[in-house]
């Protein structure tokens, strides 16, 4: 059973991470706030309750691997890594500034805790498959987690990776889909339909579970029951809301990469401080 104290702690951490993220995007006048707010509960649950990682040894060979395939949500990853101790919180203020380590998309050669450079979509999932095969080859017990966007799954490379993961029986690999149902320009289903998404992954040989991607307890429950079925890769379709936590951003396509003005920033911050979800 999920520990309610732990869930409370995760909720508080997620609220802190959301506030840092909003501040970064507002300060930089750049970023992808909508898809960051949709992913932050997943990131928080992973980094503070699931992943076996050590901020003092980001290159530790036996660490669990987490790959943010939706690299445009970099600010959410940086914030999570900073709060988890991989880098100083103060450094978040340099996001997108000249010569900052914190580019608009994550760079493993500069930012501790980043496993591979993402940005172009459909790249993180194949790399995660390679990590998982590598762990199997070494008889290692560390696990690999990859978070993709949903619109991102329109890239064919993901389905090459999905086939390979089932073929190689990668039960040490978990794919989480941030199913916020919005992409840059419109609803996923109006742009290039993905449903029935779970059936697609099942047909590719995955064990699929769906969850409310903002419910830390439900997420934790699922993560604690991995692998869902030995010999099969696990897919979690996390139903989320773009802009989660800020009423006027929630489910609004415009907030894919819109930047809040000072007034919107103040309003959003006050909503996040009140913990209105």
């Amino acid at each position, binding site marked *: 059973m999920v520990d309610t104290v732990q869930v409370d702690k995760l909720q508080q951490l997620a609220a802190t991470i959301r506030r840092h993220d909003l501040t970064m995007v507002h300060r930089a006048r750049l970023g992808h706030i909508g898809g960051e707010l949709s992913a932050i509960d997943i990131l928080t649950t992973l980094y503070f309750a699931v992943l076996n990682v050590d901020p003092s040894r980001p290159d530790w*060979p036996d660490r669990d*691997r987490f790959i943010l395939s939706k690299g445009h949500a970099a600010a959410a990853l940086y914030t999570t890594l900073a709060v988890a101790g991989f880098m100083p919180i103060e450094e978040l203020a340099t996001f997108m500034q000249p010569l900052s380590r914190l580019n608009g998309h994550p*760079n*493993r*050669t500069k930012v501790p805790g980043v*496993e*591979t*450079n*993402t*940005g*172009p979509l*459909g*790249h993180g*999932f*194949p*790399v*995660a*498959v*390679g*990590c*998982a*095969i*590598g*762990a199997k*080859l*070494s008889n*290692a017990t560390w696990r*690999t987690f990859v978070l993709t966007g949903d619109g991102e799954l329109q890239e*064919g*490379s993901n389905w*090459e*990776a999905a*086939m*390979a993961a089932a*073929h*190689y029986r990668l039960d040490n690999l978990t794919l989480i889909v941030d199913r916020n149902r919005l992409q840059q320009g419109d609803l996923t289903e109006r742009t290039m339909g993905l449903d029935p998404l779970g059936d697609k992954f099942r047909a590719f040989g995955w064990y699929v579970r769906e969850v409310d991607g903002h419910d830390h307890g439900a997420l934790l429950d699922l993560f604690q029951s991995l692998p869902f079925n030995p010999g099969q890769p696990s897919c979690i379709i996390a139903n989320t809301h773009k802009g989660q936590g800020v009423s006027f951003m929630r489910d609004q396509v415009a907030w894919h990469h819109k930047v809040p003005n000072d007034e919107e920033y103040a309003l959003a911050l006050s909503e996040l401080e009140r913990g209105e979800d």
Partner: protein
Amino acid sequence: MTTLYDCRDAFARTLEAIALEDPRACIVANDSIGSSKVGDFAKRFPGRLINVGIAEQNMVGVAAGLANAGKLPFVCAASCFLTGRALEQIKADVAYSDANVKLCGMSPGMAYGELGPTHHSIEDLAWTRAIANLTVIVPADPIETAQALRFAAAHYGPVFLRVSRMGVPAVHDSGYQFAVGQAALLRTGSDVTIIANGTVVSRALDAAVLLAADGISARVLNMATVRPIDREAILAAARETGRIVTVEEHTIYGGLGGAVAEVVSTAYPVPMRIIGVPGVFAPTGSASWLLEYFGITAAGIRAAALELVRMGRAA
């Protein structure tokens, strides 16, 4: 009759030797086991050849993941598909991510001859050498292929290695030592320098013999490493011979000729000729027939060198 070698044989033997010594070594392939000649590797090292099926984007991504997991992956796939289909993965997952992946482009150039331009890989050097943090090597014969592969295995970082299929004569003797980023002087000369790599180095040497009969002293440089390019050797050739002819089994746009011209034109301008595939899709023909057709031959190189000599020497 000169013996001709398929460099894939030396490649496969050397890769097996590396795998025997280094448990990290593994192969990632796109159903290209036979065409990469790595069937014996698969038998000798069970589980260490990861076949991802006909899926080049996933192939390169998987290799980056294997490197992240501490493995030493050698991606073995036809160069046309490896570089054409997975170029963004090569850029982002391998080069930009500084993943310790070795990209082995098999059967490059026009090796697939009659199969046509879809299977020709005459753009791969232009594409790969434009990418930062990617070492690009084009070995000329079996000895150089084996040594370049040894270098790639020992070096941390992304490498693209072009492994030829079309039979080539040996141009290096057994004492040859490959050094990355350094041209090998195969023949001294003072009137013109011929800079070549890969399958056509032997043709550059043959051209130098023809030119000697014309009374022209031709230097021959084997420029196996295209990136980083050996600026010093190029500038010495420009200064000391005043004329440069480049030869490659690649389009004349953006390959070895382009790399040499970038150095020459900005640091010591001298007249040049670039021999390769002109900007066209090749007609039907075997690899050797196509090289003749496009004048990528000793006679073609000689003609270009004579043209430069007749222009006189830059003051």
